[in-house]
C-alpha cells in the first residue's frame, strides 16, 4: 500500500502557531456567542465552533491531513459510530409523543397537527 508516511511530512512550527492562535480566537468567539441570545441556535453555534476547533486539532496537531487514507478512515468511522449512538438513541426519545412532559419539537408539531385535524 503506498503510504504517505506522516513522518516524511513535517508540519512547520509556523503552521502550529497559526492553528493555536486560531483555536484561541475561536474560544473567544464561543464565549461571546454564548452571551448572545440566539434561541435554540445557541447550542448549534457552540457545537459548530467546537467541531471546527476539534477538526483543526485533528488535521494539524494530530497530522491527520498528512496521514495515510487508512488513518482518515479510522477517524471517520469513529465519528460515524458516535453519531449512530447519539442520533439513533435520541431518535427514540424525540419521536415519542410525550416524554416526561417534554414535547420534542418534531412530535409536538405532528401531534398538534393531527389534533387540529381531529
Amino acid at each position, binding site marked *: 500500500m503506498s503510504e504517505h508516511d506522516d513522518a516524511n511530512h513535517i508540519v512547520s512550527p509556523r503552521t502550529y502557531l497559526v492553528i493555536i492562535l486560531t483555536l484561541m480566537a475561536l474560544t473567544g468567539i464561543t464565549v461571546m456567542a454564548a452571551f448572545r441570545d440566539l434561541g435554540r441556535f445557541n447550542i448549534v453555534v457552540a457545537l459548530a465552533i467546537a467541531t471546527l476547533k476539534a477538526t483543526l486539532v485533528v488535521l494539524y496537531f494530530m497530522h491527520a491531513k498528512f496521514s495515510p487514507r*487508512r488513518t482518515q478512515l479510522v477517524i471517520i*468511522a*469513529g465519528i460515524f*459510530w458516535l453519531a*449512530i*449512538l447519539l442520533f*439513533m*438513541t435520541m*431518535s*427514540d*426519545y*424525540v*419521536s*415519542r*409523543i410525550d416524554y416526561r412532559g417534554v414535547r420534542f419539537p418534531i412530535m409536538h408539531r405532528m401531534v398538534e397537527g393531527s389534533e387540529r385535524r381531529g
Partner: protein
Amino acid sequence: MSTQPNHRDPQFPERHYLNETYGIRSWLLTTDHKRIALLYLASVTFFFFVGGFFAMMIRLHLLTPSGYLLSADNYNRMFTMHGVTMVFFFLIPSIPAILGNFLIPLMVGAKDLAFPKINLLSWYIYIVGGAFTLYSMINGGLDTGWTFYTPFSTVYSNSAVAPAVVGVFITGFSSILTGLNFLVTVHTMRAPGMTWFRLPLFVWTHYATSIVMILGTPVIAITLALAAMERLFGLGFFNPAMGGDPILFQHLFWFYSHPAVYIMILPSMGVISELIPTFARKKLFGYHFVAAASLAIAVIGFLVWAHHMFLTGQSTYAALAFSFLTFLVAVPSAIKVFNWVATLFGGSISFDTPMLYAFGFLGLFLIGGLTGLFLGCLGVDIHIHDTYFVVAHFHYIMVGGAVMGYLGGLHFWWPKITGRMYPEWLARIAALILFVGFNLTFFPQFVLGYLGMPRRYHVYPPEFQVYNVMSTAGASILAVGYLLPMIYLTWAAFFGKVAGDNPWPATGLEWKTASPPPTENFPVTPEVTWEPYDFHDRPDLGLDVTHMPEVAPAHGDD
C-alpha cells in the same frame, strides 16, 4: 517444514513452541501468541465449567413446577451468574482469544501479532476481571439478570452487584485490546503476496469481530461505570427517583450487547468457512460475498439494538425502524448460510468430526436465526418477549451456533496446536451426543415460550412440566457431550497419534508449517502465490487435479 505431506509417517518436530522454553515463568510471561492462546484455553474452560454449574442448578430446579431446590432469590442468582459467566467470560473470548490468537499470525504469515505484550496484558486483564466476578459469586452472586437493568441493579438489589459490574468492566478491556491487536495485525503484518482477498475467511470474520469489539465494548464500559457510580455514589442517570431514566441504561447497554452477539457468532462463522471447504474438498462458494457479508453483519449489527426494548414504552416509530433493520441484518447471515450449502453441492464430503460440528452449526444456526426474525416482528414480540422462546432462540445461536463452531474449530486445529490427533470415532460419537442433547434441551423451550412460560421465573404452571423435564434431561446429555471432548482432547494432546503438518489436508497457510509450529511460526517468511481454498491446484500440499487427496489417512480410527 516438509513441503510434501507425508501421510504415511508424520514426524513430530523436535523444536516447537511448547518445548522451546520451560517453567511457569516462561508461560506466565510469554508473549508468544500461541502460548497466550493456551492460557486463554485454560481460563475460558474454567469459566465454562462455572457457567455450566449454574446452568445445572437452573435445570435441576426447573424439574418441578413449584421449585423445591432454590428460593426465588437464589434462582435469580443462578440465572444471572449463568448469563454473566457464559456471555462475558466464555462466549465473547472463546474463539477469538483461543483460536484467533493462535491462528491469525499463522494465517497471515506473520511471526506474531502486532502487539504481543498487549496480547499478554489482555489475558491478565481477563483474569483480573474474572477474579472480581468470582469474588461477587463468593459473596452470594448477583440477582439482577445478566442485563443489570436499573434501577434494580443500581439501587434496590441487595446482592453483590458492584464487584460483578467492575469485573465485567475490566474484562471489557481485554476484549478491546484483543480486537485492536487483530485489526492492526491484519492491516500491517500480512506476508508478501497475502492480499486481502487471499486471506482465509476466518481472518475476515475476526476482522469484522474486531471492528465490533473496538466500537461497541467502550460503550458498555462507560455504561457499567455509570451504573457502578450510581450504586456506590448516588449518581442518578438511571434512577427514576432522581429524574433519571432506566431506559437510557437499556439503550446504552444494548448498544453494545447486541453487537456483542455478533462478536460471539462471527468467529464461529469463520471457523465454519474453514471447515466446509476442507471437508467438501471444494472451494468456498462466493468468497467475496461471504467476506462482504461478514463486514455487513458487523456494521448493520450496530443499528438494531432497540429490538431488545420493544416492550419498554419506547417510541413506536423508533421501534418500527429497529424492527426493519433487524430484518435487514438477517440478510448477510442468510447469504453466508446459502454460500456454505452451495459449497457442499458437488463437493467430496467426508464426515470427520469437525464436519459433523459444521453440519450441526448449519441446521441449528438456521433455526436460531429464523426464530430471531419472529422476535424482530413487533406484533409477535409482544407475546414472546421475555418468554422461553427468546431463551431457546439465543441458545440455538450461541450453543448450536457459536459453541458448535468452537468445538469444530478446536477439533480441526487440535493437530496443529498439539501435533497430535484426537480419537476420531470417540469424537464423532461425542458430537452426536452433543447434538441430541442440545436439541432435547432447547427445542422444548421454543414450545414453552410459545405456550407462554416466562423466562427468569422460578415457578411455572404444572402443565409445562413435561417440557421442562425434557429440557433438563437433554441438558444432562449435553453435559456428557461437553465432558467427552474435554477428556479426550486433553488425552490426545499427550498420547494422540502424531498428526504431521497437514493431516486433513487443508489449504490454509497455517498448514504449511510444522505441527506444533515453531515459536517463530515460519522458519522462512512465506510468500503467498495461491488463492484461498484451492483444492485443485496446490501441488505444494499434494492437492492437484491429477489426484484427489487420500480421505482420512493419518486420522483413521482409533
